[in-house]
């Protein structure tokens, strides 16, 4: 049990270092077991250092940097322990356009092993979709589906 956890943790740890660098275009990040002695009770700490910046507390990161760090962790877990599908509700809302670019390129990779259903308001995300679904609301406050044609 503890061995299985440690094994998965190690693999996600290595993956997180890679994914973070790819999403941030540099920098470095770590997952750390804060109690190396007592693995059964140890918590997991996140260390994140965007490119060129000094390592500081996660709380000092910007809104967009925090979102991208969390996305890197999510993608790392999906890469190691792919679930059949994932539902992502506006997870990239805080990213600027440059970061949306890197995010969508990585999302395309993830979709190779995990079906992605993503709710989004961002053009960049819509552009990498294989299928687009429009939800609209009638005056009667009832939701309906609109087939949206993808013009590539």
């Amino acid at each position, binding site marked *: 049990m503890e061995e299985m956890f440690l094994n998965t943790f190690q693999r996600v740890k290595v993956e997180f270092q890679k994914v973070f660098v790819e999403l941030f275009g540099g920098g470095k990040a770590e997952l750390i077991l804060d109690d190396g002695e007592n693995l059964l009770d140890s*918590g997991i700490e996140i260390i994140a250092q965007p490119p060129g910046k000094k390592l500081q507390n996660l709380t000092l990161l910007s809104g967009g940097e925090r979102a991208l760090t969390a996305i890197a962790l999510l993608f790392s877990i999906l890469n190691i322990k792919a*679930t*059949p599908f994932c539902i992502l*509700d506006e997870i990239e809302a805080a990213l600027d356009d440059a970061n949306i670019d890197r995010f969508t390129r990585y999302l395309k990779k993830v979709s190779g092993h995990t*079906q*992605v259903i993503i*709710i989004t308001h961002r053009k960049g995300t819509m552009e990498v979709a*294989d299928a*687009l679904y429009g939800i609209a609301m009638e005056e009667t*406050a009832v939701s309906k589906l609109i087939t949206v044609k993808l013009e590539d």
Partner: protein
Amino acid sequence: MYLKRVELQGFKSFADRIEIEFQPGINAIVGPNGSGKSNITDAIRWVLGEQSIKTLRGSKLEDVIFAGSHGRRPMGMAEVSIILDNSDHLLPLEYSEVCITRRVFRSGESEFYLNKVPCRLKDIQELFMDTGIGKDGYSIISQGEVDEFLISRPEERRLMFEETA
């Protein structure tokens, strides 16, 4: 395995029956504020066995049933079905297609079906154990939740990891 289709009727703002056919790859859901997109996220959580009304943004069980509007009367029941391609038999069932249906009535009565056969909530929750889907999994990230990954205390994060292990 992938999610082939979601069918909603009477669930939150989906008073009229809606069927959404998904593709493998990237499926993007778009639309104006308040149109019902996140309600789809709630519907998928719910049909997979979510029991916390708070997680579904409600305060009582009835909140997931279409409450009516200025143009429409309230409905008496909410139903969501999710159809999964199971050709890889990730779910330990013989079927190459698995359909899970959940229904709730204003009385509070609930019904669950696995490929049209009545079952218990417990059966649905157990079916998805260790797949990363469903309770405590990582596969569903609700609106505004992405920051939680970073805010959660190291011990809570540990619990999440154990679910994936």
